[in-house]
């Protein structure tokens, strides 16, 4: 990257390191950090939407809808989440291909599961066999996002369901007394008020989500874990200008520090948001704030 890097044999110490850390391969790991942040940026709102839908379904008056909502919330309990990650990636992929298969090749008469194979017609393949590499990568990333959203949506649904129940009953009764119908009560009274109750749970969920991002590696995305393993492995002089022994320990140490910093920053930011939201609220935390100020 730098001009003096053109001949690595002349370098030593920090100049060597500065060149080593800016090789083309290392750019991939910095991009991968971007991938992780992108995943968080997309997943957090999507999971929140899934969670909102799940929580609203769970308190619906229609019984089947309520059952679906409650099952969705309950499903992540008792089963390791990583099993879900591994499951959904294949299951979603097969579900999409199956649906496309049904639509695009209606006159296909062979069974889809032949022994150990899952066979759909060529037109239904996702992504198409002749698609460029970036389509494959984007599709993989999309599947990962969807998987994260489904799993974390269930967690968010659990939090929001609790928050909806924490809104004082009197508020809802008052709304009814003012002649609001159920839909109006829900959107105008319940939803605006539940966020204060949901925030501690949601900020906890955000921390959990940050800590779940390395699992992207298991979903087949080339993320920071993948590149740390790749770049840290021993490099021989005949393959690269920057030979080094097995440095994976240092790479994973760096990842550890990256995550610790990320957690710390999130903690500080979320504490600020919480302090702002509880300001003037009639809750225990709000009362403490008032007393501290007085």
């Amino acid at each position, binding site marked *: 990257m730098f001009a003096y890097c053109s001949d690595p044999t002349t370098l030593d110490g920090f100049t060597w390191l500065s060149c080593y850390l800016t090789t083309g391969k290392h750019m991939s790991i910095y991009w991968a950090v971007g991938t992780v942040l992108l995943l968080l940026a997309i997943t957090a709102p999507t999971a929140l939407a899934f969670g909102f839908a799940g929580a609203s379904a769970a308190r619906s008056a229609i019984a089947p809808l309520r059952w679906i909502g409650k099952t969705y919330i309950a499903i992540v*309990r008792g*089963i390791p989440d990583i*099993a879900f990650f*591994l499951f959904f990636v294949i299951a979603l992929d097969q579900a999409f291909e199956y649906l496309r298969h049904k639509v695009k090749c209606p006159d296909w008469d062979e069974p889809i599961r032949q022994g150990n194979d*899952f066979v759909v017609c060529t037109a239904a393949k996702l992504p198409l066999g002749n698609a460029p590499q970036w389509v494959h990568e984007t599709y993989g990333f999309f599947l990962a996002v969807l998987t994260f959203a489904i799993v974390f949506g269930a967690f968010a649904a659990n939090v929001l369901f609790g928050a909806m129940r924490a809104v004082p009953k009197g508020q809802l009764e008052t709304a009814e007394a003012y002649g609001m119908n159920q839909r109006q009560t829900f959107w105008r009274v319940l939803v605006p008020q539940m966020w204060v109750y949901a925030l501690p749970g949601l900020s906890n969920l955000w921390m959990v989500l940050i*800590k779940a991002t390395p699992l992207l590696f298991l979903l087949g995305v080339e993320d920071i874990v993948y590149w740390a393993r790749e770049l840290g492995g021993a490099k021989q002089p005949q393959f690269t200008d920057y030979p080094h022994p097995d440095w994976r320990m240092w790479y*994973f140490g760096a990842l*550890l520090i990256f*995550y*610790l910093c990320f957690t710390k920053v999130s903690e500080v930011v979320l504490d600020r948001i919480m302090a702002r939201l509880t300001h003037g609220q009639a809750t225990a935390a709000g009362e403490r704030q008032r007393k501290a100020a007085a």
Partner: protein
Amino acid sequence: MSCWETIADYALRSQGFGERLLPRTDFTLCQQFVLIGSGMIWNIYFGIFALVSGFFLATAVALGKAAENPLVRKPAEWFIFLFRGSPLFIQFFFAYFVFLSLKGVSSFFDPFTSAWLGALVVLFLNTAAYSGEIFYGALQSIPKGDTEAADAYGLSGWSRFRRVIWPTMLRLAWPAYTNEAIFLFHATTLVFFSGFPATQQRGDALYYANYFADKTFNPFVPYPILAGYFILLTLVVIGLFGLVNNRLNRHLPQDRRKSIKYKPQVIR
């Protein structure tokens, strides 16, 4: 091949006994049940040993975090932050490669690079940090009256801790600690996906479930089997911890007893 033969061949496969080759074609439901169940031995092993050993360190860490002396408090705080603030997955990777480098220094570290000890050490430290935080929270919410009563009875030092503070701390922390135990068992599934090699394909339940899903390209059979096993395990954990909870609360009137509510919160 009958199901009994499969059980004889594969029931202890995860420990290296029985048939050496894993099934390759014509997977039967029985094979999947038996092999995934065989893998559960690892999950239970990691869970129990990490939990029992972690319990003692957690108590020490909680006391450390509650201490006045910053020389004791700061390390405890940092320990908890280090293990709760970073993903367990990365911790496994990091520890594995650290052990791998240490192996070159001294042969004492040889067993640490295999999962049975290396991963156990990580899980032990990790659960100690998480439970340490839970115990610390409980320690902070011990009713003032309890400690004052202990003072009034002339208890101090060790006997005050052993007879009043520790049992109350456990009683208050127990519902949260139950959740921690459940999630520790769930976290054990990460072991063989994070650097630690499954020598001769001796893996845990998820390892075998993943094996079948890869081979049959059908995730709808092995993963639900795994889920079933884990739900069973979760129920057993809740049952056992419930018994302990009853014992810890036995002096309280019925209506003041806290029952264990199962709240899923943590992914590491």
